[in-house]
């Protein structure tokens, strides 16, 4: 069973520089402490979309330097819970990258395995319960609260694809109708996916509005873009 800490991450962002920054934040390391491989040089999209994000891989030069004690504490608790539940899975840990200054980083523990349907059955009840208990247990272990979030591999990836489609559809609608489209409230990691998907878009800009759980992305048409006739006066 894989028990290693994540000493390598792959990240995606509109530019190589942003992808590197994001990877460093996830690992909690500085540029001097990692080896950087550019997997894909992104390019900007057109009005029709089609931009390609940049993708990089960062690997810690000294794997022990990547062992953040808070991340390791959270990952260990989740792994131990899974083993006692007889769920065959491995875990990796990384910091989330806050979307903006309103947010704090979270310890994201990702659960990897072949047969994890049970964890997300009954509308993810098991996953939600484990996340709550892990927060309480890690909080007591560290003597201070640590925001822990759990994710199950595969389920998040599917959600990401769904969000990208939703973002592109909203952009099309915003351009066609020449007015702002507001998406459902969603957590910061999901809002970030929408922002990135549309950042290269020539017809729209995106902005998050609202507070806390009601925070949502708005897709705003750029002045003059897409309208059949530009507004006169």
């Amino acid at each position, binding site marked *: 069973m894989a028990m290693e800490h994540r000493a390598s991450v792959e990240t995606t962002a509109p530019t190589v520089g942003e992808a590197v920054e994001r990877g460093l934040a996830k690992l909690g390391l500085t540029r001097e402490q990692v080896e950087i491989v550019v997997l894909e040089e992104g390019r900007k999209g057109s009005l029709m979309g089609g931009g390609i994000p940049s993708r990089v891989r960062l690997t810690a030069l000294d794997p022990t330097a990547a062992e953040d004690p808070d991340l390791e504490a959270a990952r260990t*608790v989740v792994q*131990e*819970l899974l083993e*006692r*539940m*007889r*769920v065959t899975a491995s875990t990796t840990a990384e910091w989330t990258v806050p979307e903006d200054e309103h947010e704090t980083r979270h310890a994201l523990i990702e659960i990897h395995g072949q047969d994890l349907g*049970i*964890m997300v059955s009954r509308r993810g*009840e*098991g996953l*939600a*319960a*484990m996340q*709550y*208990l892990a927060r*309480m*247990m890690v909080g*007591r*272990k560290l003597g201070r609260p640590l925001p822990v979030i759990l994710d199950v591999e595969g389920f998040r990836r599917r959600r990401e694809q769904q969000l990208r489609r939703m973002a592109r559809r909203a952009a099309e609608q915003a351009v066609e109708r020449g007015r702002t489209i507001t998406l459902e409230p969603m957590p910061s990691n999901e809002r970030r996916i929408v922002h990135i998907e549309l950042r290269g878009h020539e017809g729209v800009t995106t902005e998050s509005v609202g507070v806390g759980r009601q925070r949502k992305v708005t897709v705003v048409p750029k002045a003059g873009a897409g309208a059949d006739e530009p507004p006169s006066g």
Partner: protein
Amino acid sequence: MAMKELVEYIAKALVEDPAQVHISEVVTGANVHLELMVAPDDRGRVIGQNGRIANAIRSLLWVAAAQEGHRVTFDIV
């Protein structure tokens, strides 16, 4: 057995006095009944506000039990 270990691991991580964590397990056919006992001062730490921690433990027990084809009930006594 697995379920008892699960409750023990969670309870000991939450209480002030792990030495006083005791769990009884009664198996009747496919049904497993677990009872958790902790020091009086630690009861709140395993029950939680509005029973939220106890309910989270029940949810995880349900997952563990489903793996083994069991049904499980859980109480804090």
